[in-house]
C-alpha cells in the first residue's frame, strides 16, 4: 500500500474530527451543565463552557442522589444487582456455551434456535411471569429479586457471547491438551477458560452494562428507596424532578465516568472478544 501523504493524512484527520464532534457533542451538551451553577432549572441560553464553574453539584449528588438516599448507597445497590446478575448469567450459561461451541450433540441446531428465541423477547415480556415467580419465592421487592430479573435479560445474549468467546480459542490448543491425556472437563478448566478470559470478560462486561443502565423493569419490582439503583434514581431525577437540569447532568456524569474509564482502559482487549459469534442454526 502507498505511503500516506500529508494531504491524505490531513483529509483523514478531518473526517475523524467530524466523527469526533458527532460523538462528543451530545455528551458535552449535557456534561458542561454539571460544572455550571449559573442557572437553575432548564438552561435557556446557549453555552459552550460553564458560566460559573463549580464542583458543588457533585457534592449534592453524593449527598442525596435520589429521594434522600446518598449516591454511594445507590452505587452499592447497582454494583450488587448488575454485578450479581452478570455473574449469575455467566455462571449458569458458561458450560452450556462451551457445549454449544465445541460439542456435536443431537438437537444442537434446535437448541441454538431456542437460545436465540429467548433473546427475541422484549424485556417487558418478562415482567408478569417473573413477578409471579418472585412473589412465590418471596423475593419480589428485594435486590436478589432484581438480580434474577436482570439475569433473565442478560442470559440469552450472555450465552451467545460466551459461545463466541470459547470459539475464539483455537481448537488445536485443546486437541493438544487432549492428546496429553487431559479430559474434557480438565481441558475446559485448565486450557480454554484462561485462554478465553479476555473474551469472557467482555461478555461479562456487556451483561453488567445491561443491569447498570436498566431502570424501566426495576421500577416495576422495587418499592423501597434503599433498594434503588443508579439508573433508576437518574430516571426519577429526569421524569419526576424534571426541572433540575444541572443536578441531573452531574448525576449522569458521575454514573458514566467509571464505566467509560474501565471501557477505555480495556478497549484494546475488547476487539478480540468480539469475534467468532456465529449463527449456524
Amino acid at each position: 500500500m502507498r505511503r500516506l501523504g500529508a494531504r491524505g493524512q490531513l483529509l483523514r484527520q478531518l473526517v475523524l474530527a467530524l466523527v469526533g464532534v458527532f460523538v462528543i457533542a451530545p455528551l458535552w451538551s449535557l456534561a458542561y451543565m454539571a460544572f455550571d451553577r449559573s442557572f437553575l432549572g432548564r438552561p435557556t441560553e446557549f453555552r459552550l463552557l460553564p458560566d460559573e464553574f463549580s464542583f458543588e453539584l457533585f457534592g449534592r449528588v453524593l449527598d442525596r442522589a435520589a429521594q434522600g438516599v446518598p449516591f454511594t448507597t445507590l452505587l452499592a445497590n447497582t454494583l450488587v444487582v448488575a454485578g450479581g446478575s452478570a455473574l449469575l448469567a455467566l455462571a449458569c450459561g458458561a458450560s452450556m456455551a462451551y457445549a454449544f461451541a465445541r460439542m456435536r450433540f443431537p438437537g444442537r441446531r434446535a437448541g441454538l434456535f431456542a437460545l436465540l428465541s429467548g433473546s427475541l423477547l422484549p424485556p417487558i415480556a418478562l415482567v408478569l411471569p417473573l413477578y409471579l415467580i418472585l412473589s412465590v419465592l418471596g423475593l419480589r421487592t428485594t435486590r436478589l429479586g432484581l438480580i434474577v430479573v436482570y439475569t433473565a435479560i442478560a442470559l440469552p445474549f450472555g450465552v451467545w457471547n460466551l459461545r463466541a468467546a470459547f470459539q475464539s480459542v483455537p481448537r488445536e490448543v485443546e486437541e493438544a491438551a487432549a492428546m496429553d491425556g487431559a479430559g474434557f472437563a480438565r481441558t475446559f478448566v485448565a486450557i480454554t477458560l484462561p485462554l478465553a478470559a479476555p473474551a469472557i470478560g467482555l461478555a461479562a462486561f456487556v451483561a453488567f452494562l445491561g443491569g447498570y443502565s436498566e431502570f424501566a423493569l426495576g421500577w416495576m419490582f422495587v418499592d423501597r428507596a434503599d433498594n434503588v439503583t443508579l439508573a433508576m434514581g437518574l430516571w426519577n431525577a429526569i421524569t419526576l424532578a424534571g426541572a433540575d437540569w444541572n443536578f441531573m447532568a452531574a448525576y449522569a456524569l458521575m454514573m458514566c465516568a467509571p464505566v467509560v474509564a474501565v471501557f477505555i482502559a480495556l478497549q484494546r482487549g475488547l476487539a478480540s472478544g468480539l469475534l467468532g459469534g456465529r449463527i449456524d442454526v
Partner: protein
Amino acid sequence: MALRRARTLILLLALLVLAALARGVAVERLPIDYDEDDYLRAGQLLAEGLREGDLAIVTRSNYRPEHPPLQKLAIALAVLPLPPREPAPDVGTDAPPNADLPADLVRAARTGTAAFGILQAVVLGLLSPLAGMAVAVNSFHVKYTSQIMLESLPGLTSTLAVLAWLRWRRTRRRGWLAASAIALGLTAAGKYLYAVVGVAMLLDALLERRRANGRALLGWAALAALTFIAADPYLWPDPVGRLLASVFYHAGYAGGADVQRANFPFWQPFVWLAGSVPWSRPAFLFSLDLLINGLALLGLRRLWRRYRVMALWLAVGMAFLLVWPTKWPQYVLILATPIGMAAAEGIYALVDMLRGSRAPTQARRATWREGARALPWLLPGALALLILALLPLLYQLAVAMTDLSGQSLRDGLNGGVLRAGVGGWWGAAANSPFSLFSLQDPAGRAIETRFTGLRLIGEVLSGAFANQTWFSIMWTASSLTLSAVLGVSVALILNRPGLRYAGLWRALFVIPWAIPEFLGGVAWARLAEPGRGWLALGLGVNAPLGEGPAGVFLTQLLAGVWMGFPILMLTAATALKRITPEVYDSAALDGATGVSLLRGITLPLIAPLLAPALVVRGLIAFNQFYLFQPIGSPGGATTLASLAYGLAQSRSAPGRPGTLFAASAAIDVFIVIVLLIAVAALSRRARLAEGVGDA
C-alpha cells in the same frame, strides 16, 4: 392442452368468486365514507342529462373537476336505471361522511364500481393466478373499489396497460403496444395518480436500450395522450384551461389544510401497507395484508428479474407516494397490482428456500453418545433458560390469549391466566369482547380474566399496530445500515497504516457504547430538542431536527447510530487486522484500486465476521426501547417493544390506555414470531455459518 385450459378456467372462476365475495360483503357492510357523496352527486348530475338524451352533458358537467370524469361516467351509468332522485348536496371535501344517501343508489353505484375492482383481480389472474388472489383479498383494494370512489376503473386499466405492454415485449407486435397506450390513456382519464404506471413502462423501455424502441415509444405516448383527451370529454370545450386547473388544484390541495391536519409522516404509505384496513373491520372477509406484503418484500428480487416493468411500477409508485405530501389511504391502491405480483414471486421464492438443500455445515455427524456427554454441560444453562426465558415466553403466550388488564390482574395472577388462556381452549372460560382495535372500550375490561384465543395475535397481524410495525422495520433497517456504514468506514480509515493518533480516536469513538442507552437518549434529546435544545439555542434554528414524527425520527436515528456504530467499528477493525498485506499486494498487481479493492477484496473478507454482529445488532435494534423513552415518540413513531411497554405501564397517558397486559403480550408474541422468521431466513441466505473458530 385442453386440460390446462380447463384448469386455468377453473382458477379464474375461483378468483372471480373470491374477489366478488369479498367486495359483495364490503358493498353491503361498509358505512358511507368521505367523498362518496361527492362522486355519487357527480354521477347523478351526469345521469340527469343522459336520461333526457342530452349526451353533450359530458362536456359540461364534471362535479369535483379536479378529477377526470371517466369513472364518474361509469357511476352515472350504474345509477341510470334507477328512478331519479334529488342529487346529493354540494359540500366541501372536508365535510363529514353523508349518512343519508339513498340506499338503492349507493348500492347500485358501489356495485358498478366494484365490478371494475373484481375485473382487475381476474385480469391479473390471467398473468399470475396467485397475484390475482393477492389483489382479490387486498383489504384496501376491497374497501376503495367497493365504495363510490374513483379508484377501481384506473386500477383495472393500468393493469391492462401493463399486461398489454408485457405482451408487446414478448411478441413485439405493434397491436399490443397500441393496446397498452389506449389503456394508459384511459387510466389517466380515470385518475391522474394511476398514470405513474406510464413512467414505469417508459423506464422499462429505456433500460432495454433497443434502438428500434424510440419511434415506437413516441407513437405509444402520442396514442396514450390522444386517448386521454378522447376519454375526457370535459376537456373538449377548453382543453388547456381545464387541464391546468385540475392539475394545479392537486398541488394546492397537497399544501392545504386537509392534508396539514392529517399530518402524516413521509413514510405513511408504508404504514398503510403494514396492516389491513383498520376501520369498519366487519366489512372485510380477509385481513391478510401484512402477510401478503411481507411475501411481496421477499419476492422483490425475483420480480425484478422476471417482470421488470412490475418492479419499476412498484418503485416509481412508492417513490411518488413517499414524496407527495397527500397520503390518503386509497393512494396505495396504485400499487395493488405490482404488490400482488411481488407477493406471488415471494411465494415461489419461499418454496425455493424451503426446498433448497441445507448447506452441509457440520463436518461430523452428531451422535447420541456425544449427546449423553454434552448433557451435564448443558443442564445448568438449560435449566436457567427454561425458568428465565422459556417459561416467560409460554406465560406471555397464555396471557396473549386472554384479556388480562389492570382490572383483572388480581384474578389473572391467581390462576386466571391459566384458567382463561389455557383452559379457554376447552371451553372452560367465557369469551371476551376485548379487541386491539378498540383499546379504549370499557367493555373490553372485566374483573375476571376471560378468553380471547388467537384473536389478539391475529389482530396485531392484521395491522392493529401498523404504525409501530412499520416503524420497527424502518428503524431496524435504517439504524443498522447507517451504523454499519459509519462503523466500517471509520474502521477502514483507522486501519490505514501511517495514520496518526489512531489509538486516541478509537478510544474516543468507543465511548458511546459504554454510556447507558437511555442516558445517550437523554443527551440527544438535550442536544436536538426543537426550540430549547442546545443546538436550537446555539444556532437559533431547529433545522434539520424538527418536530412531528419525521423530525423526531431524525433525532432518534442519529442517537441510534451514535450508540450502534462503535461495536461495529470494533468488529470491523478486528476483522480488518486478519487480512494479510499480501492479499492487497497481489490485488494491486492485478490493478485493483480504490473502490474496486474495497468491493472486491476488503468487504467480502470482513463480511463473514461482520454478519453475525449485524444480526445480533439487528435483533437488539428491533426491540430497542430505552432510547425512545427520553427522546419521545410522537404519532406512534416508536418500536413495537416500546409500545408493549407503554401498554403495560400502570400510568396511562391521554390517548394511551394503561395496564393492558394482554395487548402487550400479544405484541410480544408477534415480535418473537417475526424475528424467528427473520433469523431463520437470514441464517439460510447469508451463510452465517462461515465464521471463524472451528470453520
